């Protein structure tokens, strides 16, 4: 097949931010958004209906069957909705991000471009759609009369951004690993599922036995879930020291993941 003109210094990581990098990212993002989600019925279901159904199921199981305590005066529905959505968004972004390189194998084998743009586009598409769904559900719950503070969104948006930074790093790490070790995909799914139950999403951190609590709190997601409840349910908008620590952790995840990715990406073409 024919091909045209090489790039100077064309290692796969160069030129992420240039005109070309931005044009490519826009191209991949458009592709991910329109074809993968909005183009197909199942894609759309994944984006919105799946979390919605899960929320209804949890609500039914925990309030009707288990008769879970209301954790103070809060509504259980609002309590779960605020935390469940970002978790599902992160989970999907990591899973899709980890496997997104495969569908671009032809391009990776033949063309020099920064491979990480594919992961960025994949994660961005998932998170953007899921965040839109999150906003819709929060607004819907407020209209339904649930005790939520819309002003909390002012802080919730930056919290999501911190989460996105960390999630991109994790996705980069697993995407690079997945190229060489195909089992990653199969290990990731059950692992993330177990992690969900170990994260205080369906329960507050306070009900975890004292001895285990520091371990559960170590999970960055425990922090995120707690903060989202602070701002949206309790309506406390003040920033905390922990937020800065979380940002540092997210950046460390991002740079760590990107370092691994850039180390491995020159060898992708042989394995992808």
């Amino acid at each position: 097949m024919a091909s045209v003109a090489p790039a100077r210094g064309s290692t796969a990581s160069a030129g992420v931010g240039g005109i070309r990098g931005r044009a490519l990212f826009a191209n991949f993002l458009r592709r991910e958004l329109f074809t993968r989600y909005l183009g197909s019925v199942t894609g759309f279901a994944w984006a919105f209906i799946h979390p919605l159904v899960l929320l209804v199921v949890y609500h039914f199981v925990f309030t009707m069957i288990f008769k879970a305590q209301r954790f103070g005066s809060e509504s259980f529905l609002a309590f779960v909705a605020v935390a469940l959505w970002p978790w599902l968004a992160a989970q999907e972004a990591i899973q899709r991000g980890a496997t997104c390189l495969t569908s671009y194998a032809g391009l990776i084998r033949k063309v020099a471009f920064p491979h990480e743009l594919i992961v960025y586009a994949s994660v961005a598409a998932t998170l953007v759609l899921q965040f839109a769904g999150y906003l819709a559900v929060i607004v819907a719950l407020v209209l339904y009369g649930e005790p939520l503070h819309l002003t909390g969104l002012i802080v919730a948006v930056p919290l999501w951004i911190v989460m996105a930074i960390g999630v991109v790093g994790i996705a980069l790490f697993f995407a690079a690993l997945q190229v060489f070790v195909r089992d990653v995909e199969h290990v990731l799914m059950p692992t993330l599922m177990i992690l969900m139950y170990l994260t205080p999403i369906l329960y507050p951190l306070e009900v975890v036995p004292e001895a285990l609590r520091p371990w559960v709190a170590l999970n960055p997601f425990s922090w995120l879930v707690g903060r989202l409840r602070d701002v949206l349910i309790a309506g406390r908008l003040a920033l905390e020291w922990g937020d800065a620590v979380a940002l540092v952790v997210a950046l460390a995840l991002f740079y760590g993941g990107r370092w691994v990715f850039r180390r491995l990406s020159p060898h992708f073409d042989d394995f992808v």
Partner: protein
Amino acid sequence: MSTISSPLAIGTAPQNDAAAPAAAPLLALEQVSKDYAKIDRRGGQLRLVWNLLRGRGAAHVYRALDDVSFTLARGESLGIVGENGAGKSTLLKIVAGVMPPTRGRIAVHGRVGALLELGSGFHPEYTGLANIDLAAALLGLPPAEIDDKREEIIAFADIGEHIHDPIKHYSSGMVVRLGFAVATALKPQILITDEVLAVGDESFQKKCIAWIENYLAEGGTLLLCSHSMYHIQKLCRHALWLRQGRVERYGDAMDVTQAYLAFHEEKSARAKAPIDARVAVSTGVYSVQSLDLAPGDVVPQGADVTVAGEVYSPDDRVPVILVGVVRADGTPVYGVATDMDRVAPRRVAAHRFAFTLSLPALPLLPGKYFIRAHALDPEGVRLFDHVERPLVVTGDSREMGFVRLPHRWGPP
């Protein structure tokens, strides 16, 4: 007519060189080697990942390229030949920047732009239109610029409504059409083509060759990978023969391709002869055992060519041998049999008869032909077997047709 008899791009290249003798080469490879990691046991992947993360190479490697050096100046054309697995595709990938070499240096002094892979580099799930946008993005073209060129590309590709279908539903010829259309509009500084000419019908091949010749005439630079010595000789001034990852020969395209063809002939002669003999004995038919052209498969116009070979006769009677010349497209040019000229092949061993046909000052015009030898029964009635060899006649004659007729322009 236009492609075959138009002046070769080879003729235009030296002028470009002369115009800028001191300019740095567009592309320079210095002692480039490439090792591929080999995973030879379970768990090898994790070990490999660990080694790569530590900045070490893989423990077990396969060397695809070994110490390859060459330069490509602006306006030059280089052909790359070699057997399957010789490292041609690896070399193109390194030139294109898809992966870095394990050792050695590669320098590209051109416009900074992506390698734009046509055909297999398109995303199969994208439609033709979406692939045009992707190609533009890979080259870093702003969307505004691609808007201007989209119509031009669609018109050149000329694949009608298929432009709205995903590439994966395209025929290979359609993919190449679109690839050439994109390349035409985006004006690459180096055109890298890997067997692109092997795809597509005769007329589309001609269109592609005409396009490349025009591109070269305008000072374009070409890196062509092909198994067709004809295309290499026609389009390239220099050639590089890769063998098991190493440069076997590098220099004038004609010399390199001839050496490469000679290597193949020896190889097939070694591999084929005993097998053919067995088959011939078992089937018991008159068969052509060998066919050789001297001085070679590529000759200049007007050369003295000798066709020689051996024919097997199951009953040891003297067979009739017919030698014919056909044009690459199958049009017969000339044919003659031993019984027409009342000659007999000479018996060289039991059941084996040899023949030699001299064609002094071969009047064929430049182009590709086949020399065919047919084995017939002694009566010259039944045709049992035929073997053919390609023959390329080179030259820069602009005469038309197949053969040069003796002629003289006189006063009226």
